[in-house]
């Protein structure tokens, strides 16, 4: 029974919710142990002996986990105990998989770099949890956020394309994907904008609803941002050839708009716009068109005598894994090629851990997403609620888009599997997302469950900032 210690260290909040920091510590220990075990197994299967640095590696990961835990314990004592262990486990597992792929000839060194980025990510996690005492502070920086996001998104256009996508900034020896950060900033902006405007939006929505299916276009003032964001995402796609990010931004906005307004019509409008954008991009943009072709017929290159493409190699890897997998270090997902540690890292999980291991990983993401939505239900302020929805949707959409892409469910888009994939900006961003979720969960648990409104949500409550703060 570790929960009582947790409550002892972290005094219960006003509503009497226990912090359950002890549960978190237990789960963290398990997460670190599982990661170290994976590292040891990889070493044994590849070289026949336990890697010399397994203890050092375990100690490092354990120290990071412990520091993060202490930050939560001190600064967000009522927070949900699940997100941090999930993040540590996914990050640790990702390090194992990247390290395992490093062992394939010609031999890479992505894992040490990833460890540095993970350390930075945990550092930022601690910083966010420590500095951000109340998530509502962020609401004040809505326009700064969107401005920063737009700048971050447009800067890579001036840098050369890497593997067909213009989403990188290269400086010195480091490469950096600013779009990753932009998605948090956009979520903050969307949450703040919609929290400030959702009253107007939902009122219009209800009127339309009463007219029994007669869809009237919302006023331009309301529609404006939707179209703007849609155009921006398509613009990003065309200029940077980044299908994934534009899809993510767009999906994020539609989900948040729907939650803010309660109007199903927005979903319809969103789907129509998305379909139009997707069809246009799929036919006109050659890079995207190629991805769609690969998806429709992943074995076309084989039939053409050019050998298997990445998607075909990825499917081969998943197929080779079967139910139980080959075991860590025993698969051949390195055949996928240069993106094995980044876009296709999930294929290694599928091949070496099997359907069982892959499902376990997906369940971890689903848990994180489900918990995030849970905070949204508990939080009373529209901004916090929308931010929780947005961050959860970011994780869900990312996981769906990339995992769906590598398993052949949807066309492949170059996105990073949160925590699992090699990529500094991605790991750092996802640690910030988890930090924000921790902060939101802390508030949610202090606030207690939201009252179930019979009809419209009550606005302008004590949790919400005065309307117009954003406008």
């Amino acid at each position, binding site marked *: 029974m570790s929960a009582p210690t947790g409550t002892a260290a972290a005094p219960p909040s006003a509503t009497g919710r226990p912090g359950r920091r002890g549960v978190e510590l237990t789960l963290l220990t398990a997460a670190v142990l599982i990661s170290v075990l994976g590292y040891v197994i990889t070493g044994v299967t590849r070289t026949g002996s336990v890697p010399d640095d397994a203890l050092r590696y375990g100690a490092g990961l354990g120290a990071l986990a412990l520091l993060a835990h202490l930050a939560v314990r001190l600064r967000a004592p009522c927070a949900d105990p699940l997100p941090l262990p999930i993040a540590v486990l996914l990050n640790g597992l990702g390090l194992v998989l990247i390290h395992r792929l490093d062992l394939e000839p010609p031999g890479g060194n992505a894992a040490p770099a990833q460890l540095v980025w993970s350390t930075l990510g945990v550092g930022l996690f601690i910083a966010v949890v420590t500095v951000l005492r109340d998530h509502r502070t962020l609401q004040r920086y809505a326009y700064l956020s969107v401005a920063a996001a737009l700048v971050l998104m447009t800067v890579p256009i001036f840098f050369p394309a890497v593997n067909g996508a213009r989403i990188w900034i290269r400086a010195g020896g480091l490469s950096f994907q600013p779009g990753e950060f932009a998605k948090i900033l956009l979520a903050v902006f969307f949450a703040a904008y919609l929290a400030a405007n959702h009253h107007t939006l939902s009122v219009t929505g209800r009127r339309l609803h009463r007219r029994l299916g007669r869809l009237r276009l919302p006023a331009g003032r309301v529609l404006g941002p939707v179209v703007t964001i849609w155009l921006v995402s398509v613009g990003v796609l065309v200029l940077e050839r980044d299908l994934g990010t534009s899809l993510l931004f767009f999906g994020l906005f539609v989900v948040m708009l*729907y939650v803010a307004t309660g109007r199903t019509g927005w979903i319809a409008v969103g789907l129509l716009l998305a379909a139009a954008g997707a069809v246009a991009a799929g036919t006109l943009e050659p890079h995207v068109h190629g991805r769609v072709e690969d998806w429709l017929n992943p*074995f076309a290159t084989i039939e053409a005598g050019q050998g298997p493409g990445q998607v075909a190699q990825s499917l*081969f890897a998943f197929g080779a894994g079967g139910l139980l997998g080959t075991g860590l270090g025993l698969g051949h997902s390195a055949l996928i090629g240069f993106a094995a540690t980044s876009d296709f890292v999930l294929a290694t999980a*599928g091949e070496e851990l099997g359907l069982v291991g892959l499902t376990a990983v997906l369940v971890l993401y689903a848990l994180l*997403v489900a918990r995030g939505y849970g905070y949204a*239900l508990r939080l009373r302020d529209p901004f916090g609620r929308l931010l929780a929805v947005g961050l959860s*949707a970011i994780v869900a959409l990312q996981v769906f888009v990339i995992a769906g892409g590598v*398993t052949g*469910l949807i066309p492949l888009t170059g996105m990073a599997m949160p925590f699992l994939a090699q990529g500094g900006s991605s790991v750092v961003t996802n640690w910030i997302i988890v930090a924000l979720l921790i902060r939101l969960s802390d508030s949610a648990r202090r606030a207690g469950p939201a009252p179930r*409104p019979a009809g419209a949500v009550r606005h302008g409550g004590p949790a919400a900032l005065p309307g117009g703060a954003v406008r």
Partner: protein
Amino acid sequence: MIRCVRRSAAFSLLLLAALPVQAARVQLVDAGELDRNPANRRGAIARYAVPRGEILAGGRPVTGSRDTGQQLRFERVYREGPLYAPVTGFSSQTYGTTMVEDAEDAMLSGADPALASLPLWRDLSRSRPAGADVATTVEPAVQRAAFTGLGGRRGAAVAVDPSTGRILALVSSPSYDPGVLSGTGRAAREAWAELNARPTQPMLNRAIRQTYPPGSTFKIVTAAAALDAGVVTDADAPTGTPSPYVLPGTRTRLPDASPGCGDASLAYAIQWSCNTVLAHLGTRVGAEGMRQAVTRFGFNDPGLRVPSPVVPSNFDTDMSADQLALSSIGQFDTTATPLQMALVAAAVANGGELRRPYLVDRITSGNGTRTLAHGRRYAARRAMGPLTARLLRELMVRVVEQGTGAAAALPYATVGGKTGTAQHGLGNSGVPYAWFISWAQAHDSARPGVAVAVVVEDAEAVRGHISGGGDAAPIARAMMAAALTVPSPD
């Protein structure tokens, strides 16, 4: 707002739930098909992940494995590659496998289910057992004698143990080193192209994959048919055949190379290789009788494997009388592999019983501790009656002692043989093939220990003087000498 949060949460989780469903489809339903896709390298990687089992001759490996450290890890190497190439074939990561490497590939590569002592554990652990060793029947001394004897000339030589069917030597010349084809690199591709471009066709296994007109060596088959059919009852009685002999239904005169063939006896005709007598006897046996006789010897059999497939030797089934006459002396469309002609000699030596030839003696795993399979000892088949066999033995001995095959004689053994010189090419313009088939029985042995067939394609002699006795018989002699010094395994 609460309801919308719930709905969007449900939507998000629906998206995530689709992922394991799709993964299950790929990993369980499509997995087999994906594994079988020829572009999937995993099969090849697993195949070359463990060293291949060895092929043994005379109890010693003639193959080896080299750890390349590459993705396809182990590559085949061959000790004395050219000597054993017609037996081993090649095992190439680029060009596949041939001969024993091909016929026993599942055992050698470790893929055969019989190699897993615990099949369920193998399925769970997905480990591949080490390849099994394949011990061949080849005797290195006999193999080397044939290889040296041919000396790079185009041709082939086969030795079998008449009483068991064990193949003691299987040589094709000129040969090649299968090791140069093992890898996947540029060297293997260049070697492949170069070997295929050579006019001498070094990768053609002439011993079992090439047929030649057998010429006069086929007269043994015709004689057996005539004796078994009762067409000839007294081998020393005149056969009433004129020399030259006019082929039935034509004006073509068939000459003899040796004197004294006019109205000769069967015994004289075998000893001095009279064309006329045996062509005439073939027509007297008749098309159906000849067809049945050659079938008993193994002609026209497309199913023979040793375990590599052997191309069928041919004796036409639908011929005019003159064609039958020519066929009966090993001309016209009659063709035979060197292995087939070695079996003819073996059948005579073995009292008329023909043993099915085989090249794989034993398959063992775990450093020879566990025997997985034995070379087949097939039931003997009667190619001719025992009295016929005894008579033909006598006649073949005379060929060596007093006739055209003197070059095959051994001081410590009884040797029976038959020479052959086969015309071929357009209007018989090509350099004739020199043939020799024989068997030998050591004086201190109860039964013949070896039967041999040798063919030399480009016999280095002036046209007209080419003879099986001159070019092929010495090679057969060396092989028989080597075989008789090897202690029999029984």
